[in-house]
């Protein structure tokens, strides 16, 4: 199903499918990025932590895709969405697809995304759809662990050595341009918000900014300008060049052997 265009009336089914896929894409792509740390973590505990968080995200994505294809009702499998869509059909936020960078970059992104997800899931806990709400409540519990984990690392790296301070400050400066679109709303969001099936991310932007600013200040870091230039377009399928490379690696085996299975 393609993105709803303005020329055509959205149905609830189309909008919910699109919304679930967007949420799932964010988590799948970030989960894949994080999984690249497996075997490369700076210390054993962190290797395990990042792999666990990657697994959580991929689990969240799997639940959401599974429900999306059920809503769609065309008999597709969740894996069809994962392995047989091209980059322009992916709707993940660009912040999730950026290369993993150094540990500082990974932690900066984890903190920004986990704190955003915390507020997002808090609102989604009230959606009027039993299956969707149940998933959200489960994911929400795990997201709290992710937020605590990344926040503690922001403090430790920011208020750590000269080198760690510099690296995480650079990371926040570099990634800042990608946070603007976390709070964009389009017709899919608005259509579903009217039906209590989606969250208005703009509504928690100021709480989120406070949490981020407080944490960065506590970590002795400078808070970059929230009003600087921000990139956009992810929900329309516009991506950085990095997503194509990620998908090539993730999809290659399945596309080479489309009917292969483990049995």
């Amino acid at each position: 199903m393609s993105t709803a265009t303005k020329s055509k009336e959205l149905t609830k089914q189309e909008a919910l499918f699109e919304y679930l896929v967007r949420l799932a894409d964010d988590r799948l792509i970030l989960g894949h990025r994080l999984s690249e740390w497996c075997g490369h973590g700076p210390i054993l505990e962190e290797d395990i932590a990042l792999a666990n968080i990657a697994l959580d995200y991929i689990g969240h994505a799997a639940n959401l895709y599974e429900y999306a294809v059920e809503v769609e009702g065309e008999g597709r499998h969740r894996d069809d969405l994962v392995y047989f869509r091209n980059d322009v059909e992916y709707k993940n936020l660009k912040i999730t697809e950026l290369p993993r960078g150094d540990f500082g970059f990974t932690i900066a992104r984890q903190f920004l995304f986990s704190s955003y997800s915390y507020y997002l899931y808090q609102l989604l806990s009230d959606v009027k759809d039993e299956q969707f709400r149940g998933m959200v409540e489960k994911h929400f519990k795990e997201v709290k662990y992710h937020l605590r984990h990344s926040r503690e690392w922001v403090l430790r790296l920011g208020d750590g050595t000269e080198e760690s301070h510099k690296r995480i400050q650079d990371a926040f400066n570099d990634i800042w341009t990608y946070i603007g679109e976390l709070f964009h709303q389009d017709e899919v969001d608005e259509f579903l918000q009217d039906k209590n099936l989606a969250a208005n991310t703009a509504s928690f932007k100021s709480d989120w900014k406070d949490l981020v600013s407080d944490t960065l200040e506590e970590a002795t870091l400078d808070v970059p300008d929230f009003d600087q230039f921000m990139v956009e377009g992810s929900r329309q399928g516009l991506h950085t060049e990095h997503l194509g490379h990620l998908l090539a690696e993730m999809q290659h085996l399945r596309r080479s052997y489309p009917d292969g299975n483990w049995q």
Partner: protein
Amino acid sequence: MATTATYNKEEIWDLLSEVKDPEIPVLSIIDLGIAREVTVSNGKVVVRITPTYSGCPAMKAIEQEIEKTLKVNGIQNFEVNKDFSETWTTDWMSDEAKKRLKEYGIAPPGKTEKDDDFLKNLKGSSRVIPCPYCDSTNTELQSEFGSTACKSQYYCHDCDEPFEHFKCI
């Protein structure tokens, strides 16, 4: 061979108590609160389960183990349904199960915190996890994440042993 009709609900629950968590074999899927409901009607057994952690690789193994257990007991007509409408929590674990977990060397989960406490506690939770070996409270969190999705890692400063804690979630 026994047929489905010869089993009633209680007997199915007994069979399910034999299905253990592959990672923590002292706990059954009933202890963990994974098995939520059993119905037997018109000769068909339906088991409703709630997944634990979203990405827990043991869930697939648990589903297969349930199917296997039903099959080897001669039940052919069954369904295992995964359901998200109830959210799994460690608060469902019985005191008896927590005791067994402790004996196994894993610090059991305490009571979950209310959501409004979360942001407050972000700057340092007051939760103390006693050592499962010596009961000392002189313990320290090493990592929120451990060898499986459900456990975190602690260290006991009195008996100098690392130990795992079953996260309360």
